[in-house]
């Protein structure tokens, strides 16, 4: 890879690192105590398996971004990063979709299944989680940009 392409890919990966780390941390620190009908309960992210999956996938993706940033520009492993970028994009998309599906039930409920929305009792928890989901969505978009730019950077030298 030439120097310019390596620098461009590095900038994108730093953005992706920021997005995934912030999504993992914001979701991991979301908790709120509420009392409802003389019962006090605490809403944490670990109550819902979908949010746990989201935190785990974002953390692993941020670790991957961090490790790839240290790959030297002339290494032959850059072709392999396209496939691993694809796998991580897939994992990130499935985690954000799962977290969004359950968060939608939490905010609006599901009358057919008899599930009541919980955002009325823990509004700050809901806002916190929404922030984490926004960061997760930004991470997906940046990872897609990384994937497309990686394919573009490998395509151009072959056209000579």
């Amino acid at each position, binding site marked *: 890879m030439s120097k310019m392409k390596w620098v461009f890919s590095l900038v994108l990966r730093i953005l992706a690192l920021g997005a995934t780390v912030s999504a993992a941390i914001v979701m991991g620190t979301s908790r709120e105590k509420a009392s409802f009908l003389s019962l006090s*309960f605490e*809403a944490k992210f670990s*109550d*819902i*398996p*979908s949010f746990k*999956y989201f935190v785990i996938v974002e953390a692993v993706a941020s670790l991957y971004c961090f490790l790839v940033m240290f790959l030297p520009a002339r290494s032959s492993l850059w*072709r392999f990063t*396209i*496939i691993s970028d*694809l*796998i991580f*994009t*897939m*994992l990130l*998309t*499935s*985690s*954000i*979709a*799962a977290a*969004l*599906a*359950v968060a*939608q*039930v*939490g905010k609006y409920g*599901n009358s*057919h*299944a*008899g*599930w*009541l929305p*919980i955002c009325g009792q823990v509004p700050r928890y809901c806002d916190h989680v929404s922030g984490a989901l926004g960061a997760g969505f930004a991470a*997906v978009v940046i990872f*897609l940009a990384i*994937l*497309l730019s990686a*394919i573009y950077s*490998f*395509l151009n030298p*072959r*056209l000579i």
Partner: protein
Amino acid sequence: MASGNEGQKIEADRLAPMPLSERKGFPVLLTLRLIAFFATASATIVMALNKERKALVVATIGSTPVEATLSAKFQDTPAFVFFVVANAMASLHNLLMMALETFGDSFDCKGMRLIVIAILDMMTVVLASGADGAAVFMADLGKNGNTHARWNKICDKFETYCDQGGGALIASSVGLLLLLLITALSIMRLLKPNPKPIPHNNNLVTIP
């Protein structure tokens, strides 16, 4: 000049797949696309036909039980609607790509064919993975409920609905794995074009 034109044509050819008449060996990509098409199409159809009606006793007035007919359909959950739509799109994409590979040799894509196939494959795999993840976690919520949020499980009352949904999820997971493999193969095919021998044009050399 003619030789410059030939040079450009050769570069465009480097990014095109081999024509059907020259291909030898087992068509791996085509077979994978066929299996993925069947997997995603069956996931779509099984989930779209997922419906169960049940008469349940909801209250008792005096000594007569009051029965209400409750139904569980896939449209109740937005995640399952997304699942059906995304799997339908993935199976349509596979069908189109199979048709393009077998019958599309005469289309002049100006050297963009492999790039477009790779990018469309990537978008389809991302869409299918999102649908699969959302549907799996919603199904887990329906099967086990969530005691912290006081959401009851529904699978003990609607067993057929849950089983059919589970079957659709398994088919979609198989389709997703195959789509990932297909995308990886498409990207490898894009980055390693088959070298075509440069044609030796004897009739362009004029011997004075």
